[in-house]
């Protein structure tokens, strides 16, 4: 119990506090916001962003960033549905592992560019995003591969067991894996160490290149997996389906108290950030606030929250 409490550092507590405030405000507006059914539905929607953010967080902890998320999500969704057209309907179960493998491959390329070529991750992953986009357009443009969600994708994304959405269970599994990897394995220690100082980590004998590559592979795999599940949720895979996820994923990680400079942050915070952003978007849309006002409130909320607990230390004086 004390160990759990130790993990609840200030940003995480505040982020969960903001979630409570949102729920209370929502509840005052409409009782429905506090119903179990609504909350479970929100968790289901949050799980896609949550899985993406899990990978993004590992990369951000290193002090890097992955801008290839949008089209890795898309290639994940498209691969998972296109499998039906390759070897027939009986092999559709392979769609999910294949999607994850695709994402991991893109992540491998990202990791190679960042770790070996030493290109800043911000531009290398940006370039990879364009390349993956080109590959998707090239593949889907000439022939039309099957894009309908296969039964297994729907089972993962929209079915429940005892009212518990499978998507949430999947997110929980991914989350526990990432949390254990970050807190209980040498890999996790190295990630934090590199985030604080890659130079010192390298001089201490950590194989920094390997860690960087594993982190980017994790990020790619998570995004592609989320893309496959999104295809199940939306009923089909489509181009640019990952575009709305890049900025919310980064925002969720940072709102959860992870430093964008790396080296600081814990997974519970990311969970809080993901739920916070999903709830905020949902409540604003249920209240039928116009798209323009929604964007403004959304941006202003992030600024206010970061001003409360995300400020840098003073350099001067």
């Amino acid at each position, binding site marked *: 119990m004390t160990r759990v409490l130790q993990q609840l550092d200030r940003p995480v507590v505040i982020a969960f506090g903001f979630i409570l405030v949102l729920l209370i405000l929502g509840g005052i507006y409409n009782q429905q916001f506090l119903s179990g059914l609504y909350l479970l539905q929100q968790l289901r929607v949050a799980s896609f962003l949550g899985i993406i953010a899990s990978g993004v967080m590992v990369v951000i902890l290193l002090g890097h960033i992955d801008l290839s998320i949008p089209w890795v999500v898309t290639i994940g969704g498209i691969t998972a549905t296109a499998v039906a057209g390759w070897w027939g309907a009986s092999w559709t179960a392979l769609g999910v592992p294949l999607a994850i493998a695709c994402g991991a491959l893109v992540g491998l390329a990202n990791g190679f560019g960042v770790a070996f070529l030493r290109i800043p991750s911000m531009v290398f992953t*940006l370039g990879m995003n364009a390349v993956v986009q080109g590959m998707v357009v090239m593949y889907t*443009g000439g022939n039309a591969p099957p894009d309908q969600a296969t039964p297994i994708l729907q089972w993962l994304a929209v079915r429940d067991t005892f009212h518990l959405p499978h998507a949430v269970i999947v997110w929980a599994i991914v989350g526990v894996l990432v949390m254990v990897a970050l807190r209980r394995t040498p890999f996790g220690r190295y990630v934090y160490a590199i985030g604080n100082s890659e130079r010192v980590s390298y001089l201490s004998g950590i194989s920094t290149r390997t860690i960087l590559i594993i982190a980017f592979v994790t990020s790619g795999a998570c995004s592609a997996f989320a893309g496959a599940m999104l295809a199940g949720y939306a009923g089909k895979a489509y181009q640019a389906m990952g575009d709305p996820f890049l900025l919310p994923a980064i925002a969720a990680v940072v709102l959860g108290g992870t430093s964008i400079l790396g080296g600081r942050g814990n997974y519970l915070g990311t969970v809080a950030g993901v739920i916070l952003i999903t709830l905020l978007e949902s409540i604003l849309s249920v209240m039928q606030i116009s798209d323009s006002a929604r964007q*403004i409130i959304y941006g202003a909320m992030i600024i206010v929250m970061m001003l409360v607990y995300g400020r840098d230390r003073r350099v001067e004086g």
Partner: protein
Amino acid sequence: MRSGSLKGVRLWFARNNGALFALVLFIAMFALYVAKNGVGVRTGLITAVANKGVLLALVAMAQTLPILTSGLDLSVGMIFVLTNCIASTILSGPPWLVAAGVAAVLLSGVICGAINGALVVYGRLQPIIATLATGAVYNGLALLVRPVPGGSIEPTFAAVLTTQIFDVVPTTLVILLAVVLAIWLPFQLSTTGRGCYAIGSSESAAYMTGIAVRRSRLAAYMFAGLLAAIGGLLLTAMTLSGDASAVSGGIYTLSSIAAVVIGGTSLMGGVGGAVGSIFGAFVLREVSDLLFVFDIQPLVQPFIQGLILLGAVSLGALRVLRARSRLEFLGVGR
């Protein structure tokens, strides 16, 4: 004396080799395009190329300033879109009204930049997060101004901006040159501008030396807003309407980062300049022209464009071959 000036020349080349490389690359691409196109160098052709490149060039120039201070402006594309929407609502009527409208559009860009700068300087937020959030706000404001694409702009004013001066020189290029001469160079040479370079090299050293760190950084974001607003103004003149498109804002933001990198500015800050970013932007824009004249299948074009983008930003990897120790790439850390 002689060796001194030679040293100066060498230093100048060393400092500007990124920008020069982008310039050479663009000239080579443009020459290839003209040769393959086979219609010769016509004013119409040059104007088309110029108008296509100048928008990204301005947004990339805007992006250069925060990057020089080792920051980043993820809202620069949204300021571009927001000012486009504002311009499409207020730029019609008699000349004096249009002039006032232009001033208002530019001022709104500066205000957006000032908000970014204030959040970074006084709010002490990380630039990437602060501008990510303000980007959403500016997008919302743009939607508020222009819920659906449309609007208009005084046609004669738009025609002046998008055609040629004396039927020879594209006006947009003249405007770009004027921006460089009247805004960028004075800023770069000023104490505030030099302060931006100093912050990018080492913020604590800059502070210790007595450089007005806050003023320089604030100015960098404000000038970024101004340059993006000039871009938004020209966009309005070209499309004759406003469109609060989050997608186009996002594309401009991301392309601007790529253009800045191709133009030789370091993402770590302190090295480079806005002129390089102009060439970087034109290189990026010329790629699609080349793919067109070489009859590349439309479906394959995005893929090749992506590969070229990846290759262009990866050119920095060549320094890996020169390094004597891996420690050269590893920052000192916090």
